[in-house]
């Protein structure tokens, strides 16, 4: 079975792949993005949701810091609906001293980051939850970004500019002819041809490249995070010291996320990442230094993702690792034309990564189209947010989807199903139509359904039924599908709940067990 030949196939539906697909489509290339699961299934859906100002890297990585602040400004503009301009604080505790702070401010300014030292009393006035022992604070332009929303917006824009998106389609191997990569073969055996293939599959890139005889030394670096059930601070709170474990607290919607850790893990574990009780203990011990009230704040769940770090010397011990952007031209590097890898980098610099990859694709296929991604707003962020007729029903949807809500029919589907996040039937129908949602985990990523404080305890049955009814016209198979969705959802949430199972979380777990009919 053969199909049309694309200019470019992008493998991986995280932020890097989605942004690259958007850029390629905007430059008029015929583009296919192929993803084995749903979008944001890897690191793009398992991170802090932090739009770096670059301050964190100012002292150790000037280039990375400069990239961050440039991209930070661009994303605030083109993805205004995904970014909450919270600003950030870097606080110094007595044990940190103030020497680091002085150097930090100087380095930030050299990198073009507006870093302002403020009085500790003023910092405590702005953020009463931070550790009252602080001796110094610096204000920087950090922000909070919703990674799911950001990837969705890129996917929508790529599609609207002609790109094809194939989700739930695993790439089994790269197809080579005469030493050249000419396309991909899917797990179902379909061969799809293209002039260039771009690997943007995060930590899974190395395995795909190896199939084609290309060796990319990658080091999976696990980062664990904990979500608290409240918005404890309104700004991003960082520790003003050499970057370490658990020193950033990021507000996102109505919750706060504390992270992260950094540990080398075996590549085989990357498909089933979970935070461990030991990691949670470490995060809390450190996080309480930042914000003492974390010790008794309700925890919703814990999760973990994998940073796709590239080892410059694959034979080395992993110390020589870059967290910067890595663009590999495998024609030049390995003598394998038709193949490009884009990896490393950060959520914050994803647009730049996409630009670099697309520049190279254009060079290879002989296109002189210029990059416009820094200027064109993403879907949902085009102009002013729409006003709403019914604030109770529509406000949350506008927050999530911005100008996209014009595509939702609240007249027909205004019923709120998920009360924590105010998700309506209309929004579910929209997600099915525009994002090809197939199950309840997909629905969660595209609507935040069940991500609120009740974690689906109250709503999951009605949400599952609504989704099943849209997906399946036959009532009997819809009922079966709904049952599957409920147990799938419970199991998936449970994975993140077990590492934090004490106190209020244990209370809720007993309730969940009873509601689910396991006991009573």
């Amino acid at each position, binding site marked *: 079975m053969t199909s049309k030949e694309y200019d470019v196939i992008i493998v991986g539906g995280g932020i890097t792949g989605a942004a690259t697909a958007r850029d390629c489509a905007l430059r008029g290339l015929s583009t296919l993005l192929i993803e084995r699961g749903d979008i944001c299934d890897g690191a793009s859906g398992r991170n802090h949701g932090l739009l770096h100002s670059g301050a964190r890297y100012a002292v150790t990585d000037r280039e990375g810091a400069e990239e961050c602040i440039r991209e930070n400004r661009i994303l605030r503009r083109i993805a205004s609906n995904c970014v909450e301009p919270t600003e950030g604080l870097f606080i110094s505790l007595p044990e940190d001293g103030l020497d680091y702070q002085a150097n930090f401010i100087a380095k930030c300014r050299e990198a073009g980051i507006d870093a302002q030292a403020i009085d500790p009393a003023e910092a405590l006035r702005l953020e009463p939850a931070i550790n009252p022992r602080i001796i110094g604070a610096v204000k920087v332009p950090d922000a909070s970004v919703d990674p799911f929303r950001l990837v969705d917006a890129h996917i929508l824009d790529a599609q609207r500019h002609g790109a094809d998106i194939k989700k739930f389609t695993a790439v089994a191997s790269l197809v080579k002819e005469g030493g050249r990569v000419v396309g991909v073969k899917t797990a179902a055996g379909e061969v799809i041809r293209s002039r260039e293939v771009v690997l943007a599959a995060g930590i899974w890139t190395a395995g795909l490249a190896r199939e084609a005889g290309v060796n990319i030394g990658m080091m999976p670096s696990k980062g664990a995070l904990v979500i608290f059930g409240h918005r404890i601070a309104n700004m991003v709170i960082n520790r003003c010291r050499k970057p370490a474990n658990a020193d950033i607290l990021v507000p996102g919607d109505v919750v706060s996320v504390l992270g992260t850790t950094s540990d080398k893990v075996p590549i085989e574990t990357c498909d089933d990442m979970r935070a461990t009780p030991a990691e949670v203990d470490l995060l809390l011990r450190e996080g309480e230094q930042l914000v003492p009230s974390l010790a008794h704040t309700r925890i919703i769940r814990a999760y973990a993702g994998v940073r796709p770090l590239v080892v410059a010397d694959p034979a080395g011990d992993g110390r020589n690792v870059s967290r910067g952007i890595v663009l590999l031209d495998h024609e030049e590097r390995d003598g394998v034309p038709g193949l490009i890898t884009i990896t490393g980098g950060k959520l914050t610099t994803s647009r730049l990564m996409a630009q670099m990859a697309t520049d190279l694709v254009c060079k290879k296929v002989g296109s002189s189209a210029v990059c416009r991604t820094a200027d064109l707003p993403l879907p949902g962020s085009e102009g002013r947010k729409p006003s709403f007729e019914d604030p109770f029903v529509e406000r949350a949807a506008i927050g999530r989807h911005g100008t996209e809500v014009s595509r939702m029919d609240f007249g027909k589907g205004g019923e709120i199903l998920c009360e924590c996040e105010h998700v309506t039937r209309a929004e579910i129908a929209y997600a099915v139509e525009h994002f090809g949602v197939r199950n309840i985990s997909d629905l969660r990523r595209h609507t935040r359904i069940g991500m609120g404080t009740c974690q689906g305890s109250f709503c999951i049955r009605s949400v599952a039924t609504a989704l099943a009814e849209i997906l399946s016209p036959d009532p009997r198979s819809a009922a079966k599908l709904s049952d599957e969705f409920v147990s799938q959802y419970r199991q998936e949430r*449970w994975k993140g709940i077990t590492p934090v*199972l*004490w106190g209020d979380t*244990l209370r809720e777990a*007993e309730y969940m*067990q*009873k509601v*689910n009919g*396991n006991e009573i």
Partner: protein
Amino acid sequence: MRFDAVIIGGGYAGCTVAGILSDAGLKVCVVSEGLSLAVSGSKTPYAAQAALQKHGVTVLRGDRAMGAKVQDGRVLGVETRNLGFGTILEADFYILATGKFFSRGLLSDKEHIWEPVFGADVEYSSDRTTWYDEDFSAPQPFMDFGVKTDASARVLVDGKALENLYAAGDIVAKGCKEANVTKLIEDYARRDK
């Protein structure tokens, strides 16, 4: 305030025991944390309350046992949040029916699980990773945790049963469930009359 029996907890266990004891002619008080009794349904809690009150049961809604006075292996009284000012609920015997975690019959932190009113002995392991099964639909070990009792359903504190404190319902550890509190209390009540 003096009663024959004070029941701490207004859920299924507490209400059932209160019904049996008041039927047997005892003067009973139920301390229930919620604004209505903790039985499910929109009307049932009020129907249950009306029925208990008809039998002369005193129902303290929205109140909570904060601590107990214990001497020589006997409970002398229970303090509640709302009564305050040194008023204690005194009774011949007491029933602990406060449920597990959700109803705050048991509290927990990262390493400990405890029963807050009497400091009763709790059946659990201090290793948090043994509290749960990774499979959500499998039986969960934490659902078996609870206070330890002797064969007569009397609550153990520091390994010794308090002679006039019984446990009923969800708060009882799985290993001690065979002790049938309602039967024992019923016998106790009849004997007393």
